């Protein structure tokens, strides 16, 4: 996943996920999510009070397609923490409910509210 990508879109994605501790690829913006799943992902991160960089895939067709190949994951939203793909909104919700998301942020040195 973090191998040196040959194509420019994969390189752009790699730069994004490595350039920020927490990156959420989503449909719409945190303030105006355009999809229920993206909205749920934003709500979870907001609840944890974790700062994150949001990428609106609806504004960038290359990224919208490229991100699916990058992670080998067919849906959006997608959450990356410290460059690692963590999952979509279902996994975020499962981890959040189990307290694992908070623990993971703590392990990674990212301040989160419990």
């Amino acid at each position, binding site marked *: 996943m973090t191998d040196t990508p040959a194509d420019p879109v994969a390189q752009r994605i790699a730069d994004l996920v490595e350039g920020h501790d927490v990156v959420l690829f989503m449909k719409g913006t945190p303030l105006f999510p355009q999809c229920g*799943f993206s909205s749920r992902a934003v709500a979870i991160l907001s609840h944890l009070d974790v700062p994150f960089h949001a990428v609106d895939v609806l504004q960038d067709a290359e990224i919208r397609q490229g991100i699916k190949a990058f992670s080998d994951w067919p849906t959006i939203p997608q959450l990356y923490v410290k460059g690692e793909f963590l999952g979509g909104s279902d996994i975020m919700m499962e981890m959040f409910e189990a307290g694992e998301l908070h623990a993971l942020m703590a392990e990674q040195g990212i301040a989160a509210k419990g």
Partner: protein
Amino acid sequence: MPMPAPQIEALIRAALPDAEVTITDLAGDGDHYAAHVVSAAFAGKSRIAQHKLVYAAIGPAMGGELHALQVTTAIPN
């Protein structure tokens, strides 16, 4: 185009024959579903790997023809 719930269930069972699949039509529009999948095939796998098995079972319809599928996975007791 919407996908009927029995078709989703059949696709998952074809790939994971032991799976116990519960499909819920979230919006009543044949386009937004939740699938709870219980299978021994998930044992020892990360959540990402478990969900990937379900997505792979559904195939190219996922994220296309099938717009919204909320997935939860579990290992049988």
